[in-house]
């Protein structure tokens, strides 16, 4: 529980709740009226009355009000859609070492997304990406599963080697509900092309896909200098290099090119790409994530 309390303390949960209401208010302000959908599993909640006009569905006439006021009113219902939210969390060692902030950021992000899904009466699935995609717990629904979700995430070990291509090839979101897929990863593979190849698998998914690229600032701009023995945490491969300002500038340039290429690749596949630096404010980044077309926020 101590780890759970450290990562997901009540303060964070209260901020999430406030965030949820903020999103709902924004949604209410932005979307008024009916939202008809033929999909199964929809709930209909009463929202308001209005005068009957010609052409309106006479089945919606509230006869009780007609009895009291002798005027025709029709009932307006708010349609609530149920999504299946898939949270794919990278559990490779690079998400934990050498920058533990990446792990906490990824977990908090997963919790936030799951919490929003649960309190929004959506179905939430949690999968981890390692050598393959592994389902950590069955799909959840309802606020009562928040604690179980927290327990599961707290116990998650970040110690594997990521094979993004194999993992994402293995993952298949169901077609019964509209899906929203959040991939939380640093996307580091053996080659830069490996990330693009893996993300190309998402085209076949019947879901809205969001790629959250969790990065530490030092991964974008290392603060190293001089002769350095570099060891990759996942493979233990080492490389000795003398780093000067010129090398650091070249590194930042190469990394920026990699991110730009990744973002362009995601845009071509209609994937929402978000580069999430661990030193940036969480709530601001989270709101920005949901504002960038997430059905979770707009639904």
């Amino acid at each position: 529980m101590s780890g759970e309390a450290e990562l997901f303390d009540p303060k964070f949960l209260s901020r999430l709740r406030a965030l949820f209401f903020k999103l709902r208010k924004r949604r209410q302000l932005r979307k008024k009226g009916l939202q008809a959908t033929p999909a199964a599993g929809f709930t209909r909640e009463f929202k308001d009355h209005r005068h009957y006009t010609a052409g309106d569905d006479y089945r919606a006439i509230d006869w009780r009000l007609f009895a009291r006021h002798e005027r025709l009113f029709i009932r307006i219902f708010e349609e609530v859609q149920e999504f299946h939210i898939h949270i794919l969390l990278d559990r490779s060692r690079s998400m934990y070492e050498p920058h533990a902030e990446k792990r906490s950021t990824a977990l908090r992000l997963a919790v936030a997304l799951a919490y929003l899904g649960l309190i929004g009466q959506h179905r939430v699935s949690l999968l981890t990406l390692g050598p393959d995609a592994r389902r950590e717990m069955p799909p959840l629904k309802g606020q009562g599963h928040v604690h179980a979700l927290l327990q599961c995430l707290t116990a998650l070990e970040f110690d594997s080697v990521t094979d993004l291509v194999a993992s994402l090839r293995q993952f298949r979101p169901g077609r019964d509900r509209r899906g929203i897929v959040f991939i939380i990863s640093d996307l580091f593979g053996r080659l830069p092309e490996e990330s693009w190849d893996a993300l190309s698998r998402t085209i076949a998914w019947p879901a809205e896909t969001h790629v959250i690229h969790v990065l530490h600032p030092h991964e974008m701009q290392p603060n190293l200098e001089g002769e350095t023995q570099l060891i990759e945490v996942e493979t233990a491969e080492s490389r000795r290099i003398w780093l000067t300002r010129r090398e650091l500038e070249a590194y930042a340039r190469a990394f920026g090119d990699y991110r730009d290429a990744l973002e362009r690749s995601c845009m071509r596949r209609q994937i929402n790409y978000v580069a999430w630096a661990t030193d940036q404010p969480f709530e601001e980044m989270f709101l920005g994530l949901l504002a960038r077309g997430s059905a979770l926020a707009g639904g």
Partner: protein
Amino acid sequence: MRFLHPAHLVWALLIAVPVVLYLFRRKPRTVRVSTLLFFKSLAREHRESEWLRRLKRLLSLLLNILAILAVVAALARPVVSPRAGSLRSVVVLIDRSASMAAADGRGVSRLDAAKAILGERLAGLPGGVAVMAIAYDCRPDILQPFTLDRREIARALAAVEVRPIEGDPDAAVCLAARLAALDPPAAIWHATDGLPGEGSGERSEGRREKGEESGARSEGRGAQGEERTGEGHPTPYSPRPTPYSRRSAPHAPLPPDVSLETLCVPLERPVNAGITAFQMRRLPMQPSRFEAFVQVHAVAPGPLEAALDVRVDGRLTATRKLTLGPRPPSPAPRSSPDAPRPSPFAERLLIPVTAGEGAVLSIVVAAPGDALPLDDAVHARVPELRPVRVLWVAKDPDPFTELALRSLGAEGEIQVFQGGPAAWPPKEPPDVAVFDGWLPEAWPEGVAVVAVNPPRACGPLQVAPIRGGVPVESVRVAAERHPLLYGVASGRVALTQAQAVASDGPLQPLWVGPSGPLLAAGEARGQRIVVMAFAPKNCEHLPLMASYPILVGNAIYWSVQPAMAAHGGNSRKTGELIATDGSPVTWSVPAAGGLRQEAAPVRGRWAELDRVGLWQTGGGEAGSAALLAERESLLPARESEEREAEGEGRIGKERPTSRSPSLLSGDLTALFLWCLLALLVLECWLFHRHAVY
């Protein structure tokens, strides 16, 4: 090599710092990173094996140590000087002769270059070595006795100026060697533009031969129809003997523990044309006219166009173009060590002088790119046309001699007085005394003597009568070029020898018969003497020839020449000494607007002719002074590296001199500082620009 400040060598211990830092260097920092994906692209150019990295670390350590050592060496002031470690004294010998005024393209004279080299050498000399400064031209001059104060030496050298005088390095080296031997071990640093190992005599002779061998051609004739002497033809003029003969033998071997180092500062490609001989005299057969003999020498890489102007009192009277060109190339192979150097070019001219008495005759030679102006002009005053007074003393006058003297006197240039033995000594001393078959009891002093058929020996005249005489069908000419024989057909002479002249005396044999010399001429104690060991009336062939009057006239003119030269046409070489009465010598030296008057004070009773121009003593003696030195006009050229190498191999054993490379001689502080800079740049380039790790 030694260090001027060896105490600074203790700083060499600082090399322990990089060594310690190397031994206890920081290990490379180990950093765990999420991925090597992007580092690999950077490290692609740096991927090297471990042993290469170690090698580069060692290289870096080595460069650091070398840099520290370079700094320490620079602080310790290393100097390289031959035998400087054991030297106790150094004699600095600097050439200030005329050729040291030759300037290169930047206007730097050879003297300035020599001063610079000596200054550099002196800066690198240890403090305990005593230094003496000597400057020389025709005679050495001690500027500064042995001293430990370098500033005094520097001041003395800075005050040295070029003098238009021919240099005599042998005398200077000899003096320097003697002085250096006082405080051995010692070194003589001889700064000159000449070549090392060439004594003045050797060099002069060599140049003279080459000058005579070199071809000379001229374009047309001068406006006054001057003659040009052909190659190998005798000239009627002999060079004036000087007390500083350049034909002296090479200097004696150096004393032990004394080394001679010649610091040569010649021009790389000298171009110069200068007047190396000049004499003005009356024409032998036309005593009322003068002619000037001029010899022009040139040195240049190729044919040289020169212009020779003749001016009388500043007015241009004649000009002519000279093309001083080389002879056809010698068939000797180029690779031979005896391959000739580029020959100097020479031209000899006889220029008639039509000017009144006392007029100033100026002859100026000009050539493009001329490096030495001091030898470009000669000035002389046209001599006074005073007849030569000849006293003919004969006990039994020889008719042919009388005939010859009368014919000479008919021209008006020779005034002949005849008398018997009772007329001797005369009240007024004549210019020339002709003793015909008679000699006075006491040898006359201060008058030129022409002795014809002397009956006995007297004074410097050493003759032995031959009883009955010896007929000589043909004489052997011993000195063909002697002025006495100018115009004389010696090969057709047949006569009867009446005396035998001693050949080991001061007189030089000119004609030699079976019984010894029968015509001799020479100078003893400043007195010119001509001896004819025959009686013309007893000869069958000689008196009937035109050669006899010519011979008598030549004898009179040659013997009286010094006396006549003292009256106006007294052309001398610079550096000679003249007797004065103690009053200043008045000089007329060439200037922009003509001749400028100067007064030169005289210390003692002898004055040195130390400038080019006209001079006049307080006692009335007048004359002119000019450089007139082949040695100075034929500027030596710097030998190419190949020839220098050949020369080292050829005569390296013969000469004691050596030339150290300028880079590794003297003060090496700058060299070590440059090494330090180079090391730093190399290290930066290797380990920072290319980041070889």
